[in-house]
């Protein structure tokens, strides 16, 4: 079942997209009708105007899904499942031609030769002869060298001096490319290229870790694949073409000889010698870049450029409707061939398709670890048997056994160790005695939840009493205020390195970090709530004979309840955010841990799955708290 769903995710996506479209349109119709009805009873600005309206919620969700499907190329995969494979073949041609294109102003703004000449000229002008390193004769000679290098640049850039070999080779290349263009057009028109059996057996787009099937699956694809192979050969021959005009050869020999001579001549002063060597080395470096013949006159490449243009046009013709599909359904990126694979780049890469995210979530949620479920040996959310002994060991400290009278057992003369009562107590305190097990939640999500819940409970249990005391007592307020106000504004993550060092990377450290966050929030909210008690209520309770303790318990605490519950709601949100970040720093379980691993391997699907999990859990928390607030303090603001 799961495999079938996984293999047919394009089909499922197609159905979902159509449903989303229908509901998007339908809810707009419903919404407009409803608005027309209500407009009559509600003036603009009436607070009733923002109540209810499920249809707009559905409309928004549909729009969100449609945008997600569109920019993740889910729509493309749903309705043009072969498009990626064909675009991969087109990309192969682009990749094959890239060495030639790199020399032309097709992919960059300038000819590669233009860039080289500009850079060499610039460096030559910037290189000044330091004063005093040369004798007068040498000085004149080196100034002449500048002029010679300059005229070498001119020779290589002059079309009339282009070497005959290069001329022939460039012509042959242009012819070859033109041949490819007509060949491509003809093959695409004929459309009778058959894909290989191996190609047809490939898994479809996006169902395995190989994103896009590499081998051509369609006639058009086969044509592009074949042309790309030939183009790759032509491109290789292009990289071997050198511009060596005979005049330049002579000039090169002359310049090299002069540089060698200058290098051999010694200066009298050793300090001068060093400056002299540096200058000559720098000069030689510029010259070396000019003597290998990679600079061509711009006009010499005209033929090749026209042939490439031709091939591009032929490619557009051969692509036909495919180029429109690429334009309309592959927004924000393109399919790129690099080395041995074709990959989605742009939004298609970092925004996984909704169906893929669900598939990834399904795989994570699978509690069967042997079957590839869970993540790194832990389920997402499941249950396990928790030995009671572990809980006992957590609460019973080992020193209980240490302080008992008597000694621990020792090895006797028979070479045996017979544990005595004290040993048994120690085993009990260390959780080594099996006492049965209870079912307990387990998994990454539970680990995260557990940390938040424990920290929150501690924060509430300790923070609320202190906050209330700070709300009613000058001493408590002033004594603890500096402490809390100093540590509270520090971002929790700034504490993290310190806390993790002190308490370790396991639960203790994270719980303490979250506790610090929750504690400050609870103290401040309880304090605000307590200090906001109306004086008349306090006086009334005094007059009714309540003691200080009773007033705290029966008047100030209930009065602070709305603020305390709001504080809990805020604390949950902040703790949740901090926890995920803390888990990304260190640890081996938790939702943040999953995202951290996903980040290091650039697994965008997994990243989105964790983002979704966090968002949904945060939403669930907040809805629970809203429900609790609604149920427990309906009297809020009505006193």
């Amino acid at each position, binding site marked *: 079942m799961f495999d079938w769903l996984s293999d047919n995710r394009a089909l499922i996506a197609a159905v979902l997209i159509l449903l989303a479209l229908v509901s998007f349109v339908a809810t707009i119709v419903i919404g407009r009708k409803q608005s027309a009805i209500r407009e009559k009873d509600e003036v603009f600005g009436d607070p009733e105007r923002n109540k209810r309206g499920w249809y707009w919620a559905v409309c928004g969700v549909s729009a969100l899904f449609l945008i997600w499907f569109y920019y993740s190329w889910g729509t493309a995969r749903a309705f043009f499942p072969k498009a990626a494979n064909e675009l991969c073949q087109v990309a192969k041609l682009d990749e094959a031609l890239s060495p030639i294109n790199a020399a032309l102003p097709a992919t960059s703004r300038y000819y590669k030769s233009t860039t080289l000449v500009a850079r060499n000229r610039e460096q030559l002008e910037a290189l000044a002869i330091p004063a005093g390193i040369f004798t007068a004769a040498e000085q004149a000679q080196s100034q002449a060298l500048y002029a010679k290098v300059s005229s070498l640049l001119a020779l290589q850039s002059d079309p009339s001096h282009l070497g005959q070999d290069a001329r022939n080779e460039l012509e042959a290349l242009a012819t070859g490319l033109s041949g490819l263009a007509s060949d491509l057009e003809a093959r695409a028109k004929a459309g009778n290229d058959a894909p290989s059996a191996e190609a047809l057996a490939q898994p479809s787009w996006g169902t395995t870790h190989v994103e896009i099937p590499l081998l051509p699956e369609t006639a058009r694809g086969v044509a592009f694949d074949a042309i790309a192979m030939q183009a790759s050969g032509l491109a290789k021959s292009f990289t071997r073409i050198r511009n060596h005009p005979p005049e330049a050869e002579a000039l090169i020999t002359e310049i090299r000889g002069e540089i060698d001579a200058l290098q051999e001549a010694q200066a009298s002063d050793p300090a001068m010698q060093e400056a002299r060597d540096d200058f000559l080395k720098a000069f030689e470096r510029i010259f070396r870049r000019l003597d290998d013949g990679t600079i061509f006159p711009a006009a010499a490449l005209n033929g090749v450029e026209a042939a490439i243009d031709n091939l591009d046009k032929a490619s557009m013709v051969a692509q036909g409707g495919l180029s429109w599909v690429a334009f309309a359904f592959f927004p924000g990126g393109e399919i790129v061939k690099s080395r041995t694979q074709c990959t989605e780049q742009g939004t298609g890469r970092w925004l996984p398709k909704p169906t893929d995210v669900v598939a990834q979530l399904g795989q994570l949620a699978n509690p069967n670890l042997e079957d590839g479920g869970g993540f790194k040996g832990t389920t997402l959310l499941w249950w396990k048997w928790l030995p009671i002994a572990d809980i006992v060991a957590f609460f019973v400290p080992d020193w209980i056994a240490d302080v008992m009278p008597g000694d621990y057992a020792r090895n006797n003369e028979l070479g045996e160790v017979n544990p005595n009562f004290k040993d048994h107590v120690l085993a009990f305190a260390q959780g080594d005695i099996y006492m049965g097990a209870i079912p307990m939640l387990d998994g990454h999500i539970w680990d995260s939840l557990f940390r938040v819940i424990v920290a929150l409970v501690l924060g509430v249990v300790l923070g609320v009493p202190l906050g209330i005391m700070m709300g009613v007592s000058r001493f408590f307020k002033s004594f603890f205020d500096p402490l809390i106000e100093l540590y509270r504004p520090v971002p929790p993550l700034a504490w993290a390195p310190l806390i993790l060092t002190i308490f370790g990377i396991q639960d203790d450290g994270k719980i303490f970090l979250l506790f610090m966050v929750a504690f400050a929030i609870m103290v401040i909210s309880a304090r605000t709530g307590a200090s906001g008690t*109306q004086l*008349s*209520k306090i*006086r*009334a*309770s*005094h*007059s*009714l*004979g*309540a*003691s200080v303790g*009773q007033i705290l318990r*029966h*008047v100030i605490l*209930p*009065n602070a*309840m709305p603020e305390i519950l709001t504080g809990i709601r805020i604390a949950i949100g902040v703790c949740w955010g901090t926890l995920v970040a803390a888990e990304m720093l260190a640890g081996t379980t938790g939702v943040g841990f999953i995202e951290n691993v996903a980040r290091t391997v650039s697994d965008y699907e997994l990243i989105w799955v964790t983002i979704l999990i966090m968002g949904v859990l945060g939403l669930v928390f907040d809805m629970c708290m809203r429900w609790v607030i609604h149920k427990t*303090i*309906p*009297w809020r603001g*009505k*006193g």
Partner: protein
Amino acid sequence: MADLVATDLCMTFTNPQTGAKVEALKDVNFRLKEGEILSVLGPSGCGKTTLLNIVAGFINPSSGTVALDDEIIKGPGADRGMVFQQGALFEWLPVEKNVDFGLRMKKTGKAEAAAKVDHWLDTVGLQGFGKTPTYQLSGGMQQRVALARCLVNDPEVILMDEPLGALDALTREKMQSLVLELWKETGKTIMIITHSVEEALLLGERLFVMAPRPGRLHKEYRLPFAERGLNESLREIKKDPEFSRVREEILTMIWDMEEEIMGRV
């Protein structure tokens, strides 16, 4: 002899920043006999509320004493019940939990407390409202709850700080009758602070008019209207020429005091 006795009561407030002193009360002496009902009138700032707060024990006088039952008042206590202008109900508790608050604080038995709550809710006209949240009640009903909450504790003196000030005219009149009924029925000593001259005349068996700067007792009246109000309609009493005369006299008195203050500022 559960009389409320104020002896040479002075209250001076000092502004902690400027050190400026304000004499809120100066040499206030009175004796309120058990079962008397007293209303206190005066322009704003004459120390009415300060006087009430001292009697309630919320603040201590600078000098002089207030004694109840010959015992000097040093702090708030259950023997002096308070009713505030806004009810000061505990909105998180339903009506019956508000009413039995004092009993719960004293750890009275549940059955006894329930019986008392029922009795007093009946008396103030709130039978069947025990489970209702207080925030769902109207202002008049909230004030009835406040009265019941105070009475259920069986205080010796009931102190009311403008208890009916926030109510509409009709509700106010009904509540005035209720206060008189409760006074008759319980025989409690009652002290009412009010802004309304009419209310002071109707409810006060005795009436103090206070004068400001320094706050002091200016004039005392003994009036027959509260006693008459137990049997007669309050509206009839208001038509009495004697009622109108005293009302005009007091109004003029307070008007003059206000004018004097304005002139001084």
